[in-house]
């Protein structure tokens, strides 16, 4: 098998596309003016920023004035959640509804607010990784300030029923925010039609550069100013605009949302081929997260008796870039909170691998991935005393077996 190089970590970040880069380039050395300046060079830059805002608004079905550029998803999440909390706490609203498997930008923000006196409800996500509108409805209380639920999960790719969730929030008169970082470009999003009050997104997941994103804030919601200073972003987030990044973001959004159905069909066919190929050839494995309503490029599989970081290093030696939810790769003692939220034991979560595929992946790349994963897992298991214990049915190992396919 000839060695290939396959970047399969597009949920971590993506390559800046040629189209994005070429739109950005003039704003570094030619149209480099400050958008706040009065002369032509400044006006041109200012026009580019406002034009980008309008292009983005048109893709998501909102007004340009409702788009606030940020440094990315984490900043947008922080601003939305802390901003609403700040405004509504004084009115006696001190409860937030979220899920157990949000991105840390949301979870850690909620934990911060919990220390400030908020109560947080973390909705369970079941063994497949979904929440329902009914769960949200039941969790909302008189004093609920905000519901914040991710559009699609970054590790297991499951997509939440956002329009239905937004509907129950509105029925109960509660604001709804969604972290759509992983969903943009995968799910058609129209914030008005879907009833989204606030939405965070990040450019570098869709082939724009790192360090740019936006927060959509529905007209009528007034968040506290995030950065005090000049009048940029209507004075809400001061600081000279990152003009090239903003221009690139607009192009990336347009490209990513241009033909979602065809892209979904193409990528999900390869995804399913890889999932089937791995699950059918590697014993004691499992797919994490439901296959229905799943991001087209997301594959998350656990292998019993294997540790995730070793797996990633060996995949890397074979030219495949992937990620894992093992404790070792998370930099903490516990494996991924997302995998644990599905009810997985630590021992099963440690052996996880996430592949997030995107264009220009080919079916042949898929075949290569299947072959490499098969070989590498076998190699790791051959030197794993844990795998030996599992095969020998050592006491204590049987409780993991119900989570995976048969060992032999």
């Amino acid at each position, binding site marked *: 098998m000839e060695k290939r190089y396959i970047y399969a970590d597009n949920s971590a970040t993506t390559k800046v596309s040629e189209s994005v880069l070429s739109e950005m380039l003039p704003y570094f050395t030619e149209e480099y003016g400050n958008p706040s300046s009065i002369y032509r060079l400044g006006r041109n830059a200012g026009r580019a920023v406002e034009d980008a805002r309008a292009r983005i608004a048109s893709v998501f079905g909102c007004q340009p004035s409702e788009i606030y550029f940020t440094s990315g998803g984490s900043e947008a999440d922080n601003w939305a959640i802390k901003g609403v909390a700040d405004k509504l706490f004084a009115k006696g609203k001190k409860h937030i509804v979220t899920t157990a498997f949000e991105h840390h930008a949301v979870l850690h923000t909620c934990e911060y607010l919990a220390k400030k006196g908020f109560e947080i409800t973390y909705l369970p996500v079941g063994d497949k990784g979904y929440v329902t509108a009914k769960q949200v409805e039941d969790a909302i209380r008189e004093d609920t300030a905000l519901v914040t639920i991710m559009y699609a999960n970054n590790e297991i790719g499951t997509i939440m029923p956002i329009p239905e969730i937004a509907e129950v929030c509105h029925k109960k008169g509660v604001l709804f925010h969604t972290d759509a970082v992983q969903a943009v470009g995968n799910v058609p999003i129209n914030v008005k039609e879907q009833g989204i009050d606030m939405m965070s997104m990040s450019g570098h997941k869709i082939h724009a550069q790192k360090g740019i994103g936006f927060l959509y804030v529905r007209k009528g919601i007034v968040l506290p100013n995030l950065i005090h200073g000049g009048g940029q972003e209507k004075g809400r987030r001061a600081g000279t605009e990152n003009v090239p990044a903003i221009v690139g973001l607009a192009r990336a959004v347009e490209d990513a949302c241009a033909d979602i159905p065809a892209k979904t069909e193409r990528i999900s066919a390869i995804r399913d081929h890889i999932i089937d190929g791995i699950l059918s050839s590697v014993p004691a494995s499992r797919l994490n997260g439901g296959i229905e309503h799943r991001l087209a490029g997301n594959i998350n599989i656990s292998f019993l008796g294997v540790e995730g970081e070793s797996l990633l290093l060996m995949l890397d030696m074979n030219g495949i870039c992937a990620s894992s939810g093992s404790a070792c790769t998370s930099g903490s003692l516990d494996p991924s909170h997302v995998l644990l939220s599905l009810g997985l034991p630590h021992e099963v979560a*440690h052996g996880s691998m996430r592949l997030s595929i995107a264009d220009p992946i080919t079916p042949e790349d898929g075949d290569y991935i299947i072959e490499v994963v098969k070989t590498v897992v076998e190699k790791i298991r051959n*030197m794993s005393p844990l795998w030996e214990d599992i095969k020998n049915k050592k006491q204590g190992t049987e409780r993991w077996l119900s989570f995976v396919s048969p060992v032999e």
Partner: protein
Amino acid sequence: MMLYSEKVMDHFANPRNVGEIEDADGVGEVGNAKCGDIMKMYIKVDNGIITDVKFKTFGCGAAVATSSMATEMIKGKKIEDALKITNKAVVEALEGLPDSKIHCSVLAEQSLKSAIADYYKRQGVDPEPIVGKIPECESCH
């Protein structure tokens, strides 16, 4: 993010002394599956000298590399010299480890001691005065 040295990557990619010894004179196992690392070490002892050593490890890149390095360091050594090998020596031999991976080297030292303790037990000798106490995995307790 952490960076592994060339030496760590070499020992991870080409681990030395992987396997089992069927008629081992001492077998030690440390770590646990919940934490994500287990090391199992087999030694063959002849006349107080460790003549052969093999290991199996479930764990991250550093866990594999430290076990591999530890086996290389004790092979052919007298037991008392092998017992002098500390986790620090293993880290140095690997040209360093990221801070978050130092516990792997501790585990490697412990797996080695645990195999030697087992050897003494099989000889009818109380290992504790010689090898010392082997603590439980710190991160889990």
